[in-house]
C-alpha cells in the first residue's frame, strides 16, 4: 500500500468537496454519480494505477484508464488535479467558456490525463479494448481500466464489446461498473432493468468480482485482487456497489441529484459534511 486507508479516505473527502464546489460554481453538471465514484477514483489513481502525471497520449508502459460515463467528469478532473496532472486552480473553470475542463471529458482542449472524448454513452469499453489490443501488439503488459455507469449498459455497443473482449482473451482489461441502480428517469429497475449483471457478464465469459465502491478498504482490495486475476484468458468485471451522492446525506440514494447543482445553502450543508484535507482550489 502506498497510502493508508485513512489517507485515501481523506483524499476522497477533498475530491468530494471539489465536486460539489465545481458543480455549484457553474450551476450545472452531475454531482450524484461523481460523489458515488470518489472512492473508486481515489483508490485507482493513488493506489492501483501505474501512471505518469507527465502525460503522454500513447501511455507506453503505463496503465490506462478510460471513463465511459463521461458525465461524472468532476470526480475525474479533481482526481487528476490532485494526482498532479494539472494545477487544481483550474478546477474553478469547470464548464466555463474557454476551459479545458469541458462538461464532458475531451482530448480536444488537450487536458492532460484524457485519451478520448466520452459523454455520448456506451463507447468506452470498445475504446479500451482497442488500447488493450495495441498494448498486446506492442508487448506492453500494462493494464487497461475502465469505468461505466450501470444505466449506460443499456447502450447496445457495450454488449458488442462485452462479447469481443473474452473471445480475444483480453485478460489485462479491468472494467468497473458504477452499480448505483439509478439513472436520470429513475431507478434502473423501473426504467429498463439490468437484471443480474453478474449472470450476464459471466455468460459472456468475464470473470466477475463484487466490491463496495463506497468502502475504501473494499475497493482497494478489490482492484488489487482484480489484477491478480489477469493473465488467465478472461477480462475482469468489477461490479461496484455505490450510492449516488455518497458523502452528502441529502443527495444519497436518489436519482434526483444525477444532474442538478446545489444552491448556496445546499453547498454549505454539503461542505459541512466533507472535511477539507488537501486544501480547496
Amino acid at each position, binding site marked *: 500500500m502506498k497510502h493508508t486507508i485513512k489517507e485515501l479516505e481523506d483524499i476522497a473527502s477533498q475530491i468530494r468537496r471539489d465536486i460539489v464546489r465545481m458543480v455549484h460554481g457553474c450551476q450545472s453538471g452531475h454531482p450524484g454519480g461523481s460523489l458515488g465514484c470518489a472512492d473508486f477514483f481515489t483508490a485507482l489513481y493513488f493506489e492501483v494505477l501505474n501512471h505518469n502525471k507527465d502525460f503522454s497520449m500513447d501511455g507506453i508502459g503505463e496503465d490506462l484508464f478510460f471513463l465511459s460515463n463521461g458525465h461524472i467528469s468532476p470526480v475525474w478532473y479533481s482526481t487528476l488535479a490532485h494526482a498532479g496532472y494539472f494545477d487544481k486552480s483550474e478546477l474553478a473553470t469547470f464548464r466555463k467558456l474557454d476551459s479545458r475542463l469541458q462538461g464532458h471529458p475531451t482530448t480536444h482542449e488537450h487536458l492532460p490525463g484524457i485519451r478520448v472524448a466520452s459523454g455520448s454513452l456506451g463507447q468506452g469499453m470498445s475504446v479500451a479494448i482497442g488500447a488493450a489490443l495495441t*498494448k498486446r501488439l506492442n508487448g506492453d503488459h500494462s493494464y487497461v481500466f475502465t469505468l461505466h455507469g450501470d444505466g449506460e449498459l443499456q447502450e447496445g455497443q457495450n454488449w458488442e464489446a462485452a462479447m469481443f473482449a473474452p473471445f480475444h482473451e483480453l485478460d489485462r482489461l479491468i472494467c468497473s461498473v458504477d452499480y448505483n441502480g439509478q439513472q436520470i428517469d429513475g431507478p434502473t429497475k423501473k426504467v429498463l432493468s439490468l437484471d443480474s449483471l453478474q449472470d450476464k457478464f459471466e455468460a459472456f465469459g468475464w470473470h466477475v468480482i463484487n466490491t463496495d465502491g463506497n468502502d475504501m478498504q473494499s475497493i482497494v482490495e478489490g482492484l488489487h485482487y482484480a489484477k491478480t486475476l489477469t493473465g488467465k484468458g478472461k477480462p475482469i468485471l468489477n461490479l461496484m456497489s455505490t450510492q449516488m451522492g455518497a458523502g452528502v446525506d441529502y443527495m444519497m440514494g436518489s436519482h434526483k441529484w444525477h444532474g442538478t447543482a446545489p444552491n448556496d445553502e445546499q453547498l454549505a450543508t454539503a461542505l459541512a459534511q466533507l472535511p477539507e484535507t488537501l486544501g480547496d482550489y
Partner: protein
Amino acid sequence: MKKYTYTEKKDTRSGFGAGLHEAGKKNENVVALCADLVGSLKMDAFIKDFPERFTQVGIAEANMIGIAAGMTIGGKIPFTGTFANFSTGRVYDQIRQSVAYSNKNVKICASHAGLTLGEDGATHQILEDIGLMKMLPGMVVINPCDYNQTKAATMAIAEYEGPVYLRFGRPVIPVFTDPDQKFEIGKAWMVNEGTDVTIIATGHMVWKAIEAGEKLAELGIDAEIINIHTIKPLDEEAILTSVKKTGCVVTCEEHNKFGGLGESVARLLTTELPTPQEFVATNDTFGESGTPDQLMSKYGLDAVNIVEAAQKVIGRKK
C-alpha cells in the same frame, strides 16, 4: 480532348486491398479491422502477410470504430473496413465522438458506396455518406476514381496523421490513371484542359466525365475536366482557376446532390466567384435493385446526363 484509354477494368475496392497491403509492408504500425466483410473489402493479402495485425470484429461496426479509436493510443494506424453504409450512418456517433472529436488517426475505409453496389438495393446503397463525413470537423474525405488512384490514396492516407474517410466501390470500371502516381491529399487532378465548361467529377463519375468530354468535343464544346478525389479539404484554387476561365461548371458524383461534392463546389463559388452550376447527382432519393449500369442510367448518372448538363450550363452563361 486528351485521349484516355484502358486495357483492363478493375474494381476500386481491389485498389484499396492492394494499397492496404503495400501500406502494411511499409509501416508495421498499420493495422486493419473488418466487420465480417473481408472478401468484399479485398483485405486477404494484408491478412495473409500480417495476421497478427488484423482484427476480425464480427458484425459489430460500432465496436469496430471504438476499437480502432483505442488502437491509435500506443501508435497504431487502424484501417477499418466495411460497406460505406455501415461505415458511416450506422456508426455516426461513434465516429463523431471517439474518432473525429477525439482527433484519432483512424482510416475509415468504405466499399460498395453509391448505386453501383447494384442488386442489394437501397438498404446498402448509401448516397449520403460524403455529406455525413464532410460535416465532421477535421475529417478528410476522399473518393478516388479507379483502381490505381484508390491504391495510391490508401497508401497516402497511411502517412497522413488524422481521421480520414476513404470511399470506394464494387463495380469493375476502366483503369486509366497512372499506376505510379503520387497521391496528394487535397490536390485536384487536371484530367483535360478546356475553355468552354468545367466538369468536376469524383469517384466512378470521372470516367463518365471523360466519355462526356469526348462527346462534347464532337459537338464542338471544349470541356475542362477536373478530378476532385479529395472532397475535403477541397482544392479551391484549382476550381477557381478553372471556373475563371470557363465561366460555368458541372459537378458529377454518385451521391445525393444534397451534401455532396456539388454543394461543396457551390459553397465555394457562391462566396468567391458566383458561377452557373449544374449538378449531376441523385436527386434526394433512395436507390433500388438493379445492375449498376441500369441504376446509373435510371438515376441520371451517365455520360449523356453530363453532356446535357454541360450544354444547359453553357447556355446559362451571361
